[in-house]
Structures are given as structure tokens and as C-alpha cells.
């Protein structure tokens, strides 16, 4: 399992559009990608669950990646977050 922390810089947090992007990105990998925010967590491929987290700007989240392609997936996800959130 691999993981990293990321602090959201997008002004509006994880709302519909970035969540959609994130879910789409996460579906590319066979690994299970999970977003942890405080007490709650959500599978990154599940759009509803992601939005339900209600992640805001400035909040730090933990992303865990577990599966066959976790090495590449974790790097790609990092890049994705830096670019989009």
C-alpha cells in the first residue's frame, strides 16, 4: 500500500466537477484508491461518496493506493491533485 497527504488549494474544494475528474482518473487504475478526510473516507471512483466528504480548501486529505499498479498510480494521483485541486 502507498499513501500521501495533500492539502487542497482549489478555492471551492472537492465539488462536483473536480470530483468527476477525480473519479474518472481513479478508474484508470486497477488499484483501490481511497480518499480519507478526517473521520470519513471514500473510494475515489465513487463520485457521490467523494462529494459527500465535503472537502474544503485548505483541508488536508490522505490518499491511499492499494493494488497491482500502486507504484504508478500513486505518482499519477499526486500529479493529478497538484494540477486539479
Amino acid at each position: 500500500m502507498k499513501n500521501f497527504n495533500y492539502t487542497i488549494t482549489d478555492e471551492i474544494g472537492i465539488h462536483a466537477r473536480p470530483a468527476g475528474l477525480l473519479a474518472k482518473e481513479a478508474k484508470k487504475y486497477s488499484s483501490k484508491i481511497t480518499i480519507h478526510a478526517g473521520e470519513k473516507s471514500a473510494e475515489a471512483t465513487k463520485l457521490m461518496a467523494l462529494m459527500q466528504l465535503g472537502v474544503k480548501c485548505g483541508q488536508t486529505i490522505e490518499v491511499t493506493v492499494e493494488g497491482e499498479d500502486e507504484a504508478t498510480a500513486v505518482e499519477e494521483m499526486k500529479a493529478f491533485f497538484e494540477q486539479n485541486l
Partner: protein
Amino acid sequence: MKDKIFGVLQRVGRSFMLPIAILPVAGLLLGIGSSFTNTTVLETYGLMEVMGPGTILNAILQVMSEAGNIVFANLPILFAMGVAIGMAKKEKEVAALAAAIAFFIMHASISAMITIHGGTESMLSGATASVCGITSLQMGVFGGIIVGLGVAALHNRFYKIELPQVLSFFGGTRFVPIICSLVYVLVGILMFYIWPVVQNGIYAVGDVVLKSGYFGTWVYGLMERLLIPFGLHHVFYLPFWQTAVGGTLEVGGQLIEGAQNIYFAQLADPNTSVFAVSATRFMSGKFPLMIFGLPGAALAMYKTARPEKRKEVGGLLMSAALTSMLTGITEPLEFTFLFVAPLLYGIHCVFAGLAYMLMHLFEVGVGMTFSGGLIDMFLFGILQGNAKTNWIWIVIVGIVYFVVYYLLFTLLIRKLDLKTPGRGDEEEVKLYRRSDVEARKNVTNGNGSQASDEDEISAMITQGLGGKANISDVDCCATRLRCTVIDAVLVDKELLKSTGASGVVQKGEGVQIIYGPRVTVIKSNLEDYLANVEEMPKDNSKANVKENTETTVEVNAEKSYDKNSEKVVKSIVISSPVNGVAADLSTAPDEAFAGRMMGDGAAVVPEQGVVYAPEDGEIAFVFDTKHAIGFLTDSGVSLLLHIGIDTVKLDGNGFEALVETGQHVVKGTPMLKLDLDYLKENAPSIVSPIICTELEDNQKIRLLKEGTVQAGEALFAIDIYE
């Protein structure tokens, strides 16, 4: 490259239209106000008793005169803002504000530089002027255009800029006025050194123009007419009307630059005895041409039309001729022969030059606000008295023009068998008849839609421009719809012409469709249509073949999948959460939603301010910003109800949540209250995607309702395949 320059020039010309559009009303105020407060005029018409100095009427007229005058006096800043608005791609209001700020800052910087270098005394006389109360360089509307174009460029570059966290408050559109302020301090300093050189250049050009005499006037008139088919005439005549290129003159102790400015300054000045022909030579020529010449051409076309066609052709020509005579808007008439008989247009251009020249020769001093129709001729010619304006020559030359145009057009049309309206084959008659619409309607919408006529025209325009996805930008000037398309190959000129246009000009990605003054209505309808209606029906459209947007390809793929796949085992129906209008999701004005990136479903436009629970289910979440609700139906479908586009940015304003996260609701329970007026004003769109976020591969959306929909009525179905 050439096409690109044309595209940019076209945009610049188009951006002039907003400030130019204010001129007629300002001209009317000033024209009526100053004419009837002028004691010479009053004495001539014996009106001293009724409206001489001291009467209430006189006071009102004085106010009118001043109100009109202030517009002409401050055109530079109006152009700065107007051009910025016209050239800015989005968030135009920010560009307008930035332009006003930049304009003040530039002139204030210049003013400071002048003071530092020894004040106005050390400058050439006439090089300085008071601009909005700032003692600055006399830059005329060029000053405004420099600001407008620069601000728009900065705006388009920076309006989405992201700044580091600590400065993020100043990011995005807020950054635009900031960067513009800084840049225009520098521009101001620079202008102090550069502008005097440019000014000398302009004076030199103005001098050449002045010395060019009658021949110069002819060339001016010829050029102006030649540029009309390209829509670039505004760019051409504006420097003559508004800057020293068109001459300078001292009026009432003030140095005035530009032909139109000179005319109106003289109009406002009670001491004017004769209007300066050196200024009106750039304007008066329009009168005989537009009031007399072109109607003569119209009559010729009517007479030469085949007898059985005369009635319908007559209607078209009559209205076009009247438009030309009354308002001086000539394109509807000119375009009826420009495309079918370019030779006639060539001759028309030569005569246009000649008209200007003759007016110059006979010292006709009639100005205009915007073009040379009867209204302007009455106000600025007849009313001012023949002694001041020599307006009688307009009529004399005009009658000759009418006869010459009539005879020449008749002769050439007959001799060369030119296909002017009513002379060609059936289709060639460029008249937009109801039967055409009906025929077209049946072809494009076999199932018989309930769309109105306006929508039908909009639909045809959309199709002619290669489909909604191919249209990058829609705007209009006085007579033409000006569009920019993404792929020029997809444009179908014939189809566009058949929408009632008198002509279509295409240069690369820039497309102009000429309709005449009713174009503003057509433009609004088209915009409404584009905002509300789904992609054009694909069956017989040319665009379909070359369709290149990913979205549509996906959709098509899905549809074929539907047909080929096994049978549906189950369907879940989702109802509309609002009273409003339903459409395919691909019409949502947002790539992410329209591209079905977040899921599939439908787009609805709420018309009443309440969002109801579409089915029995649970509120999965309400965003803090209240613009979207996650909804889990009891049948197990995850729905996202996203109200409006980009409404996340409103921070909850315009929304009121009536439910809480975790609450179970029955179908029809009010969930959100919307302030529709606020949303329409502040969000890019109130089109609201209603989507299923977690569809399995064997689940497909089937839209059940398009057009008006009531809350609770079936909106779409989720078909589950084997």
C-alpha cells in the same frame, strides 16, 4: 494569416458598434436641442415667442442639447470601454471597469509628465486638451481605442489567473484592473514621448487628406463603399470622423479634431454661420446616395423582375429601400445585388465616391450621427437652413442620382441578364417565405416539432454554421450577424442564405450573415436557442459526417450500442425535480457535464424557484454552497442535482436549503428554494444537470421528456440490460 487579420479586424470593427450605437440618440438630443435654442433658427421660423430664451421649452431644449453634447465630448472614454467590452471574451463587465480605470490612469500619467516637463506652455499648441477634466495630450478616440484594445488583451490573458494562496483574493478577474492600472501608468509615460510623433504623423495625413481636395473626397467615398462587403467600413471611416485625420478646426475657441466632432461642435455653437465643408465632405455624400440613388436601383430591380415575381420581390425591395431612405442603413439593399451582380456593386462604389465629391463641390455642410437617411438630413440639413448647409443640393444631385441609378441598373440588368431578385430560377429569389420554413422544418424535424418560427430560423443558422459545437462566438452589428466558427469547412453558405439573409460573407473562421436592422432580434433568438436547445438533429446534416467532438462520437456510439445490445430487463424512471424545460444533457453549457464526465442524465432549466425530490429517497448530502444535492433514491440510484452552471462560486447566495443531509424524503418534497432572478444574473447559466453518477456498464439513460416539464413528471429512464 490574412484570414486571421481579417478576423481580428472584424472583431475590432464589431467592438466599435456599441459606442457608435449611442451616437444617433446623442445626435438627436443635440440636434433638436441646439437647433431650437439657436436664435437665428427661431427667428427664421418665427418661434421666438413660443420657445425663445426665458421660456420653459427653451430651458428643456438647452438641457437636451447639453445632454447630447456630453456624449460627443467624451467619446474617447466611451470607446475605451466599448472596445474593451467588445474585445473581451468573457467577464466583459470587468473589462469595462478596467478600461475606465486604465483610461483615467493613462491620462493622469500623461498629465503629470506634462507638468514635470514645464506644463502645457512648453507643448505645441493644440497638442494638449482637457480629457474628462485632466489636462492631457489630445489623443481623440485613438486614446480610447488604445486603452480598449490593450485592456481587452490583458483581460483575456489574465482574467483566470491563479495567484499564490496569500494573494488569492486578488486573483482571477480582480487581477485585471490591477494589472491594467500598472500597465497604463507605463503606457501613459510612454505616450508622453511617443504620441507627439504620432500626432505629427496624423496631422501630416490630415494635411494630405485636406490637400487631396475633391479627388481625395472621391477616393474616400469609393473606399468606404468598397469596404462594406467586408464589414470593415467602421474601421475605415472612424479615424476621419473622430480624429485629426479628418481635419482640425477651431470652434468657439476650442480646437476640435475629427469631421463629426467638428460638425457637432459647430452645431452646438450658436455663432456658426456656415458649417465647415472640410469636415462634412466625409459625411454629406451619403445623403444623395442613400435617400435617392439606392431607391432608384431598387425600382430598377423591381421593374426588371419577371412579372409573376414582381409582387414578392416588390415587398423585399420596398422595405430595403425604405430602410435606406429613412435610416441610411443600406446593406439590405446593397446585398441584394452585391452577390448576384458584383459589377453593379462596383459601379455603385464609383458613384458613391462621386456623390461625396459632388457634395464637397457644392459645399454641402450637412453632418450626421451615424448614416445618411432622411431623419439626419432633416435635423442636420433642412432644419439648420439652406444658408448654413446648402442642403438643397442634396435634393438636386439626389434626383439626378435617382434617375441615373434607375436607368443604369435597368440597362445593365437587361443587357447582361443579371440575376437580381425575381429574375433567376425559383431558388434564386432571396426571399424568405413561410413555405420555405415549413419545407425545411419537415426535412430537419420529421416528427413535427412544436418549435416556433424563430427557433426554426435559429436552428437553420446553427446548422448552416456547422452545428452548435462548431460555433465559437456570436455577435452582431447594425445589419449583420457576425460569428466565429471553429471549423470553417462545416459552414453551409447556401443554407445560411436561405434563412432570409441578403448575403453571406466568409473569411476563414469569420462568418457574416447579412440580415438588415432586424439582426439584433435574430441574434437574441439564436443565443436563446443555443442556450436552451440540444445539438441539431443529426440525420441529414452535413455537420454530422465531419463531426469531430468527442461528446457526440460517444453519444452515437452509445446509441448504436443500444440498438445492438440485448433486451432491456428493467427500467428505472427518474422524474423531474423542477417545473421547467428539459433537454438532452449534451446541451448543458459546460463541457464536463455535456461530455457526461460526471455521469449521464438530463439537463433541465428551472422556471420556478423550487427544487422538489424527484423520487422517494434519501438526501445523501447538501453542499455547503447549497447549489447541488446528492440524492439516493429508494430504488438505489445515485443522483446529482446540480442547479445551474458554476453556481458553486455563488457561495450559497440565491439558494435556500429546505432539507438536511441524511433526511429521508418522499417524492415532491421541496428541497431547495431558488432565487431565479439572482441566479440568472450571477451564474453563467441556470441549466441544471440532473445526472446518475454511478452507472454500470449495462445501464443506459433514455431521455423521456424534452421541452416543458412539470416536477414529478418522468424525465429519463435508466434501462438496465442483460
